[in-house]
């Protein structure tokens, strides 16, 4: 059901996209830090959080009027989920996240632009165990803010930019609710990356 929704969203974007000559593609690679997914205390306090993760994204960029650009971005990252306490860290399983956002970007000052966006994020654990033992959480709403800095680079690198992305979503699972957690936790993610623009978009 959710897979079909994602596919339908993808098809809708492709259909809605204007001529290829107007649309640019941006590919980004980076490193992602995520805050705790769970904080708990059983005798002693501990956290559950993903390790630093490689992150990749692809975005379709459509130039609009007055310097604005519309963006549709698919973003993914994969890392190891850890339980961390005062004595150390224990690897639990692999965790993949996939996020889709739509947003708008505009220049702030020369070489610096800012983007805001809304979308959803979904977690895919490598095994339905632990906090995911009763199933994955559904797609959670996500907000993002991103700044891009385009340094003065020579020829082939002139359309590359450094990007810092911050996004926020809420996390809780059925197993955590069964354990007694009543509220979801805000998860903050920061991604530092390099973006390359292809095609016609700025």
């Amino acid at each position, binding site marked *: 059901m959710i897979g079909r929704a994602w596919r339908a969203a993808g098809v809708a974007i492709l259909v809605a996209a204007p001529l290829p000559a107007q649309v640019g593609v941006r590919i980004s690679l980076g490193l992602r830090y995520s805050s705790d997914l769970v904080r708990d205390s*059983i005798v002693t306090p501990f956290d559950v959080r993903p390790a630093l993760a490689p992150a990749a994204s692809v975005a379709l960029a459509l130039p609009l009027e007055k310097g604005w650009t519309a963006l549709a971005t698919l973003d993914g990252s994969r890392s190891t989920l850890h339980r961390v306490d005062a004595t150390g860290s224990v690897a639990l*399983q692999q965790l993949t996240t996939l996020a889709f956002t739509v947003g708008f970007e505009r220049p702030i000052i020369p070489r610096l632009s800012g983007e805001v966006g809304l979308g959803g994020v979904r977690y895919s654990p490598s095994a339905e165990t632990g*906090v995911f*033992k009763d199933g994955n959480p559904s797609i959670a709403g996500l907000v993002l803010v991103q700044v891009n800095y385009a340094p003065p680079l020579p020829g082939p690198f002139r359309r590359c930019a450094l990007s810092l992305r911050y996004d926020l979503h*809420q996390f809780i699972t059925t*197993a955590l609710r069964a*354990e007694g957690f*009543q*509220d979801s936790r*805000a998860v903050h993610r920061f991604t530092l990356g390099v973006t390359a623009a292809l095609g016609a978009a700025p």
Partner: protein
Amino acid sequence: MTRRVLIAALLAGALAACGEPTVPVRDCAGCAYTFANSPLVLGNDTDTAAVFHWPANRVPVRYWADSRGNMRFLIERALAIWETQFLYGEFRGVLVSDSSSADVVVVWNNVVPADVPPDTGAPVPACSGDNHSLGSGPGTDSVDASGRMVGPIVVGLEPQGPYSAAQVQACLRRVAIHELGHSLGLLQHSPNPADIMYSNVTASAPTEIDRHTAELLYHTRSSVLPPP
């Protein structure tokens, strides 16, 4: 007007982002039973209560199951049931093919029962189990002076009494979970007849009290070290 809406939205977002979910209350009375053996002879310290669980660096714990009958199935099933009791990956077990490399060895004590579908009627004591580990049976001398177990935990299962093969199999499913509970470190029996760790097992799976006890155990400092 637009600016006020924007500020209100930002404030609402900031509150949502900074709110700290409340940690579940777990220290309720009767939510768990005692898991430590007390007192246990650990070297010369006779006052030390034995708390044992497998440390994170020994997980997954290696189990060897007797190759006869359906022991392998019984142990795989019991391990899967125990693993699902843990929310934070505290315990996992794997079957190994070499008993000399196992942390826990599970054998038939005498007769190997027939592998038939289990009886679905009321539970009867058609089997028994024992656990040669900390303070149980001959295992009271199984910990050296430094507090380390000297060898693998040995679990035995066997049919009992004048019961049908189907009743024996139903019993073995229950008792395998119970005995593996001891091998996890639940060294005591539960006082609650409904729990899987009650001495005369009639439960078919761990209860919420069993689960909570195991969870507490795996977050309590262990006083006994696993075998080398």
